[in-house]
């Protein structure tokens, strides 16, 4: 398979402990590879180290043992080829939605020096992204004038504006209602198909993982490691209808069983 030939993300035997030598061991013996252009989902019991995994890949935490390699380089500091989105949209309330989305461009080395002179071009890009997620015309509104679901859409735009090769999503749809969630699944699905971006999605929602991902990693209880890896067989492009097929439900059921077992084992 392609992802085994050229992994974009490679986590090798990683140990990560919080708060000094006697602190919490969050993940231990973690191994995981994500191929370029792949959509990976990570599921597991609460507190098992999923967010920790995200922070290891983005270089926000440096592991005490093992190594993390992203795009062929050992991670020793934050990697700027990633875009991140969390469950909490963390929009800055004093900036308009458009300015919030442009924020990464003011930071990322390769854009920050071009931003002022090519402002119009970037604004156009941001507005195009807003349109993609169904927020056309909301750029001038402040984030607190948007609903939770709209903020989460804007959050996705912010994660994508600097054209990251790798998109890390940590339970981005957790706080949304079922219909908005399904709508945003389709947005993500289409983005992935159109832009060829590599996505790692952490989620508690097993249907979400099964619907979106190419591969699903199941983690053990803390200290987290990968218990099992599933290849999702459904053909792309997937329609929401796929969730009512038998094979889909069987897969969700199987994942559910594995996580329930991992919780008991803790």
């Amino acid at each position, binding site marked *: 398979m392609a992802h085994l030939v050229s992994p974009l993300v490679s986590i090798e035997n990683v140990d990560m402990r919080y708060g000094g030598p006697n602190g919490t061991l969050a993940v231990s013996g973690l191994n995981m590879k994500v191929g370029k252009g792949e959509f990976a989902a990570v599921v597991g019991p609460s507190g098992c180290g999923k967010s920790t995994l995200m922070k290891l890949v983005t*270089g926000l935490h440096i592991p005490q043992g093992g190594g993390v390699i992203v795009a062929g380089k050992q991670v020793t500091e*934050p990697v*700027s080829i990633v875009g*991140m989105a969390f469950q909490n949209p963390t929009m800055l309330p004093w900036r308009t939605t458009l300015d919030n989305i442009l924020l990464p461009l003011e930071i990322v080395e390769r854009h920050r020096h071009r931003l002022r002179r090519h402002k119009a071009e970037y604004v156009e890009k941001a507005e195009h992204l807003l349109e993609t997620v169904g927020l056309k015309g909301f750029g001038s509104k402040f984030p607190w004038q948007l609903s939770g679901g709209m903020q989460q859409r804007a959050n996705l735009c912010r994660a994508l504006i600097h054209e990251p090769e790798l998109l890390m999503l940590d339970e981005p749809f957790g706080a949304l209602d079922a219909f908005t969630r399904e709508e945003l699944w389709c947005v993500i699905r289409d983005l992935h198909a159109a832009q060829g971006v590599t996505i790692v999605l952490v989620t508690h929602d097993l249907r979400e993982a099964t619907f979106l991902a190419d591969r699903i990693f199941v983690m053990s209880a803390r200290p987290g490691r990968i218990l099992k890896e599933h290849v999702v067989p459904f053909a792309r492009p997937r329609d929401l209808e796929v969730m009512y097929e038998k094979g889909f439900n069987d897969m969700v059921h199987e994942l559910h069983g594995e996580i329930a077992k991992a919780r008991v084992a803790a």
Partner: protein
Amino acid sequence: MSAVTDNTTPVTQARPLSARMSWVTLAPWLYTLGLFVLWELLVIALEMPPTILPAPSRVFQAILQYWSPIWKNSLQTLYTTTLGFAIAVVAGLGIGLFIGWSKTIYAGLYPLMIGFNAIPKVALVPILVIWFGIGTIPAVLTAFLISFFPIVVNVATGLATIEPETEDVLRALGAKKMDIMLKVGIPRSMPYFFGSLKIAITLAFVGSVVSETVASNYGLGNMMSSAQSQFNVPLVFAGLLMLAVEGIAMYAFMAWIERRMTGWAHRSTMAQ
């Protein structure tokens, strides 16, 4: 704003909105007037001599009678207070940013600041007099010393309470400490900063008047203490009244600045 009020108004409310609004805006004046009337009646009822508690009418009479010195000293106090306050704003902002910059500096300097703040600033006036002589400078410095602490604490708190997730999003993009401070920390601490100005300005008045009272030949503090030594109690009260007026005016000014500068922090009232 009005739309929001409209929605919360029960339909059964008979009185039109404008009438209720004007009562609310009138209320402070009416209550102040009420206080003066009560005070006047109390003095009459208890037959207080003006050397103990002068009636408000007597105090206003004193204001008219001594208008020239009152005016001059009021300006002097306003000047020392605002100058001390201005220094406090600059220094408080600087020190607050410095302290909030890193967890280590925050942890190291915070106890020192608390200790410093616990010292009654009156006790420092004699030292300031030894260094600078009596007059304007100790008054300005006392106003500064007493008012800069709330500014420091508020700015530092605003910086120190950045949501870790916001910081993570930016750091993952390669943001340096400086970027995070400029893009998030400082804008975020502005509502705290402007909020602290209201507290700081009232404290600055306390500082300047205390210093003027014990170590100056000018200002309302000095005027009141000399009036007191001449048993001119109505003039003392006239001074107090002027102080209250200046205090309210400056407070209102700071509140206005706060609203102007950090409207986004008062979200619900801006939503339309």
